[in-house]
């Protein structure tokens, strides 16, 4: 069964440093998403991406965040200057159509900011 792959599985970074979280969506999917989950809390939407541009973003997704699809397979989330409160699990997801039916989540990257 096709999978969404995320790397690394765990990233530890110093406060103020830049991090890039990487995702390889399912190959024929067209819509890409990032979600985050602070420990013990619910999963929260960050951003959706289609046709090489952001479709929608939440208020969490401020100027410190950016997304990119640098080639035909990767989808990245960059946090420019990490804060302690950015510590969370970050999930990438992809779908073929603009619907959560057929939405596939990756296993996540645990980001720890120290």
């Amino acid at each position, binding site marked *: 069964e096709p999978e969404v792959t995320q790397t690394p599985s765990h990233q530890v970074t110093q406060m103020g440093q830049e991090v890039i979280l990487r995702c390889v969506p399912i190959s024929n999917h067209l819509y890409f998403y990032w979600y985050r989950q602070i420990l013990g809390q619910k999963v929260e939407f960050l951003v959706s991406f289609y046709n090489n541009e952001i479709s929608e973003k939440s208020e969490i997704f401020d100027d410190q965040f950016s997304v990119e699809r640098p080639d035909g397979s990767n989808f990245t989330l960059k946090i420019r200057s990490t804060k302690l409160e950015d510590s969370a699990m970050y999930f990438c997801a992809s779908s073929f159509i603009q*619907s*959560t039916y057929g939405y596939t989540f990756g296993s996540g990257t645990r980001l720890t900011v120290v």
Partner: protein
Amino acid sequence: GESVGLHLPTLSVQEGDNSIINCAYSNSASDYFIWYKQESGKGPQFIIDIRSNMDKRQGQRVTVLLNKTVKHLSLQIAATQPGDSAVYFCAENTPEGKLIFGQGTELSVKP
């Protein structure tokens, strides 16, 4: 504002019993709901969905019930197994394709 929330944070059941996990939503315009299972260290995994023109939908060992009058969803798991132990989230799908998740219920199955 819109929100999706769960009634109980934890649920403990005996193996073989049926489990019922509840969810309330506040946006009466919501028309599509999904239940996800999240195991430790993994991403949310689709279990079952339901559209607002339905009251009930059945899958393999799982049933989702939708009561639009009181804006309530439930997930029923028949003959609960140890492998069902996980956190279960309900989520509301928006027309833009993003998910609004509820808080989550941790299901613990005792052998």
